[in-house]
């Protein structure tokens, strides 16, 4: 990734929170959103600007599920792994996702299109099983819907 783009993302996130060290998580969240993940260079830059040791930045970046230090696919699928979705047929949908994409949880397809992750409860249990692709929510899923939904993304 170009250096400019990274610097710009870090700059705007740090400015947005007035370089407040207590806001490290929202800052990383912002950068993660604009770049898709947290490249090493970005973490180093954040550490410098917040005057925080790189180890601390790294420890936070690797702790939270919504932050990623690995490059993600163009589209990120978050599948709800919680019990209410599980008991209404979530497992079959999950298997269908894994089989269709031929990847496991946390992996990215070789063409860089899809990353498959799990997410804890999204709180919309009334329409389970649920998944989120990028920012779009899909509910009341059945395994046979998966190929159709995936084909809408390019």
């Amino acid at each position: 990734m170009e250096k400019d783009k990274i610097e710009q993302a870090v700059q705007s996130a740090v400015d947005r929170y007035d370089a407040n060290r207590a806001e490290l998580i929202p800052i990383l969240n912002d950068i993660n959103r604009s770049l898709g993940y947290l490249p090493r260079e970005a973490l180093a830059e954040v550490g410098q600007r917040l005057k925080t040791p790189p180890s601390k930045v790294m420890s936070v970046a690797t702790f939270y599920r919504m932050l990623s230090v690995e490059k993600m696919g163009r589209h990120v699928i978050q599948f709800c792994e919680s019990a209410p979705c599980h008991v209404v047929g979530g497992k079959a949908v999950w298997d269908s996702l894994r089989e269709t994409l031929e990847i496991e949880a946390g992996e990215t397809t070789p063409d860089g299109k899809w990353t498959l992750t799990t997410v804890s409860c999204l709180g919309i249990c009334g329409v389970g099983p649920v998944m989120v692709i990028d920012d779009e929510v899909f509910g009341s899923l059945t395994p046979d819907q998966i190929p159709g939904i995936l084909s809408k993304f390019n």
Partner: protein
Amino acid sequence: MKFFRSHVLVSVDPKSLERGAHEVIDALNDELYSQGLIDEVQVLETSRIGDPLRYGPDMMVYPEGVHYTNLSIDDVPFLVQEHFLKGRIVEKFLEKEEKVQDEELGTPTPKELRIVLRNCGKIDPNNIEDYISEEGYLALGKILADYTPEEVVQVILDSGLRGRGGAGFPTGKKWQFARVSQTKTKYVICNADEGDPGAFMNRRILESDPHSVVEGMIIAGYAIGASMGYIYCRAEYPLAVKTMNIAIQQARELGLLGKNILGSSFSFDLEVRMGAGAFVCGEETALMASIEGSRGEPRPRPPFPAVKGLWGQPSNINNVETYATVPIIVLKGAKWYASIGTEKSKGTKTFALAGDVVNTGLIEVPFGTTLREIVYDVGGGIKDGKQLKAVQTGGPMGGCIPTEYIDTPVDYETLSELGSIMGSGGIIIMDEDTCMVDIARFFMEFTQDESCGKCVPCRIGTRRILEILTRICDGNGRDGDIETLEFLSQQIKADSLCGLGQGAPNPVETTLKYFRDEYVAHIYDKKCPAKVCKGLITFSILDGPCTGCTVCARNCPVNAISGERRQTHAIDPDICIRCGICAQVCNFNAISIN
């Protein structure tokens, strides 16, 4: 004074103005004048009536109390003639009743009592005036005018309110501890991250009645002597974060947050902090670490947050539902609240019903309501006429309660006696097709994954339990596994640092206690009684019902089914992956699972 026989109130909120409310008023006056009615009908301006985006400009006509919507100047002459001259209500301008179905929160059943959820779905969460019209911020005004902080603490103590986050610690006691700490800086924190998977009542409250939480937190701030508060919200709830931010902004604009609230000497402000996806951050010490911008790892207690909390200062942490209950307790009195519920658990509790029950969604019942009433009277019974097998409460750290305890009145004590917990109020109903070993494995997968890794019993212990359970479900259970599971559960419970580890073995312990025969069947007989665990079931085709229609063979993803047309087919168990598709597609119930 002039008397009018009729009054017309036209909404002049910004959106209605944009859509021509003033033009409608002018046209009305013109038309009334030309019809000679100007001395009989008075036209007045009012703030919004209905949702302006849907109805504006709209108006109310009294004394009939009729709501006319989506008006334009062209409609006015006809309306005036019909309504004011001829005295007929004009149907075509009447508010169209749109049946909006609330998927999460249905009409309350007779067993329910909505106190915390009273405003949800009824008021506009993004409009502070809606909340104020439901006696909102009245409690705040009352305490600032008439109560000392100690008196507020006393009211909460007397009400018997207990923390709705799960542990059920008396809220008044918590406030008292934070109150007596002699430091200048204290914090009020709202835990909006602890919802067990499936327990979405907190999200619902934040999204549909945000001001009740804001008001509850301001009252808590006054009671303990804090001037700053944080709402720590899960990142999985983006809409809740947005709604809370709007609510805080509106409260600030009206002087309900900030310096010298309502002209008193009390100042208090709020901020929302968002998590980034870590279940353990619902644990209070982990949550505070996360607000400070660190890894959300728990630390040993004591010191408790009331003594040493956020940034080392005394802090009071309650959850969303607890704060949302505070204003109404202040308004209606401790005595009123304490009259609801059981001896030790006062008031009502919201539950999120999920799983194999007819009516899923949010409910609110007084403590002491039995599980049977919750499942059958409120939940409408089990789906598809099946049998109830177990009720799981308390989320991934909770336990499974079998049908023989279905008449247990639900409160904090009775649930823990049964080996389960209240948690945030998730209830999952499981029917006869549920394998309890598989469920225990499922919950353990979750806790093992969410363990933060700081302490050994939780990090390694949950992993060992998961390995054993997976082995059992795969059909490779060994003699001694049950005993090992029991031993591990005890150890993890006794030695873990925080509630996550201490509660992690609950699903295993309760299923071992109440459904031991299923473990025995898995390990010794190599059978899964509920026919769920793929390693323990085989599919075969019954000779009689099979018509040889070939549907199963055509749908089998691995071509494990063979047979001639109109002849009984057969499944090759070595190729079969036990996906169950054949059983789903067969029209003759010819697939047998053993």
